[in-house]
């Protein structure tokens, strides 16, 4: 319908493939996200640590630079699994902060403004909607977690040589898997919470609360009962255990000591055991399933009030 004709006309051109339609959402959302100067600044700050890490890797392999800066090579962090574990952890928490800022408006705004019927009456399913919104978070968080992590690994491999690469290739899997699990968990939690509360500010607060309140509760349980079972309700502790497991740093027995028994029954040996790894994986999987269930209930064109 040309403007000058000013008449209704059908569309007769070609259509995009059905599978690619969910990608429309991240394209529009990312444009909106980067309109925020605060977000853009924070996003740039998230690259500082990868940059520092890259410099460290470079220094390890450049004798001239070490000499110039008068650094003892032994004082530098060794480039090994611990180095990459710490990288994944640090960037993981940066990812969490970004999620708190960027994720809540993605779904809550649509729900608050009744936009879902407009999406869902088209040849566009609820699953595609959730996938499209999730991919916004996945793309942004990937750019600050596993993508620089893998690049850093290959920089080290390039400088160290093929032998190091083949000995440590498993770390690429650990970096990627550890980051992706965290990203998926964050994305699902953020979308589910914002779908539930439909209010951006409250959703951001709830997301922060969901990480800190259970951690505090878990800490109380651990302190009261001299155990580590409380970590099962703490997302932070769960993901830390998973990351340690992936990088071969998971230790089940964290402490062993003797203490006075109850009512003078003598000394008691206390062994503090972290929850088993399988339980950590299970809890994360359960959290993801609950989020998916919530999204399936809330992401609807219209909610039926029974």
């Amino acid at each position, binding site marked *: 319908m040309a403007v000058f004709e000013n008449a209704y006309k*059908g569309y007769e051109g070609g259509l*995009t493939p059905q599978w690619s339609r969910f990608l429309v959402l991240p394209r529009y959302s990312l444009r909106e996200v980067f309109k925020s100067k605060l977000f853009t600044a924070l996003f740039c700050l998230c690259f500082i640590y990868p940059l520092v890490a890259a410099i460290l890797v470079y220094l390890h392999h450049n004798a001239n630079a070490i000499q110039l800066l008068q650094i003892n090579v032994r004082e530098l962090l060794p480039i090994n699994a611990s180095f990459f574990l710490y990288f994944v952890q640090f960037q993981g928490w940066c990812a969490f902060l970004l999620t708190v800022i960027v994720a809540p408006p993605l779904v809550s705004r649509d729900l608050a403004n009744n936009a879902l019927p407009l999406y869902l009456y088209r040849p566009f399913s609820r699953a595609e909607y959730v996938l499209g919104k999730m991919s916004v978070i996945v793309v942004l968080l990937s750019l600050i977690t596993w993508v620089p992590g893998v690049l850093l690994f290959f920089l080290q491999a390039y400088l160290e040589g093929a032998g190091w690469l083949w000995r440590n290739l498993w770390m690429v899997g650990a970096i990627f898997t550890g980051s992706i699990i965290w990203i998926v968990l964050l994305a699902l939690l953020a979308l589910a919470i914002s779908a539930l509360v439909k209010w951006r500010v409250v959703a951001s607060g709830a997301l922060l609360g969901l990480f800190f309140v259970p951690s505090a509760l878990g800490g109380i349980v651990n302190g009261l009962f001299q155990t580590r079972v409380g970590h099962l309700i703490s997302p932070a502790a769960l993901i830390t255990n998973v990351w340690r497991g992936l990088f071969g740093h998971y230790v089940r027995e964290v402490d062993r000591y003797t203490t006075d028994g109850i009512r003078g029954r003598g000394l008691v040996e206390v062994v503090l055991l972290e929850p088993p790894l399988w339980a950590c994986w299970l809890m994360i999987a359960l959290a993801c399933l609950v989020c998916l269930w919530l999204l399936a209930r809330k992401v609807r064109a219209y909610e039926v009030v029974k």
Partner: protein
Amino acid sequence: MVTPLIELDDLGVTFGKRAILKNLNGSVKGRAIGLLGPNGAGKTTLIHTLLGFHPPSAGTARILGHDIAENTKSLRAAVGYMPERDSFVAKMSCVHFVRLMAELSGIPSEAALERAHEALFYVGLGEARYRSVDTYSLGMKQLAKLAQAIVHGPRLLILDEPTNGLDPPTRARMINLIKGIRDGGRARILLSSHLLRDVEECCDEILVLKDGRIAANCNLDEERKANRKFIELETRGGDRAEFAEAIGRLGCEYALSGERHIKLVMGEEIEISDLYRLAFERQIQIRRLNYKRDSLEDIFLKAMEEEETGATRGGNGNGRL
């Protein structure tokens, strides 16, 4: 033969234990269908079910020949929907909003932008298209909703209370747009409204719902033709009484009214031209000829009364289908 716009095949929808739509049957074929009914009659639920938002608990329906349960994607590509409530994507300019909707319907990015501009000019939001939809007035939001509904060139346009809350000029504009789309012949319209005047102006067929059942389904033009029997004439000159007697001899019932008017009920085989012939023979001028017909309001109220008295034709709660 015209493809039925909507075919209802024993369609039932239940929320919890409450039946909202009760075994609807029949089909509608018009260019523009008016969906009428009192509040809570099931109009919006019927629309939502046709769009696939609520699964039918019994039976099925077909839109333009596509089963709503089986051909969901191809069906949705052919439909444009304007919801009743405020619906928009926040913090986005109107042209981007409409473009996004076009892209989600499968139109490539550049073509979507072009069509978004065109759709917004068509509905009259051309000058305001770069403003965020959040800042629009109610009337402008309604027009933006219409723009997103037509941007992908649907073959069926479902409009749920499109004139809700509009001032008279904006309402007139909306009605003209709907009539324009209808007369263009490229899209058929299902218009749900509780404003009978809107439906009367835009639609050629109506479907009246009451308590989840079809209370009436009729073609407005045919209904009007069926009611063309009551006529009022205004005359000048000649002998009015003799003219009236001549009309009576033709087989019409008549009554003189005032000094110049004759009211009559036309006989079965009498044409209007017969009246003019009689008037010419008696040198009488017919200055005005009014058909007295049922208004949509009469039809609607009759359907409501029939439902209440249980006198629904068809006997199974499915009205005249």
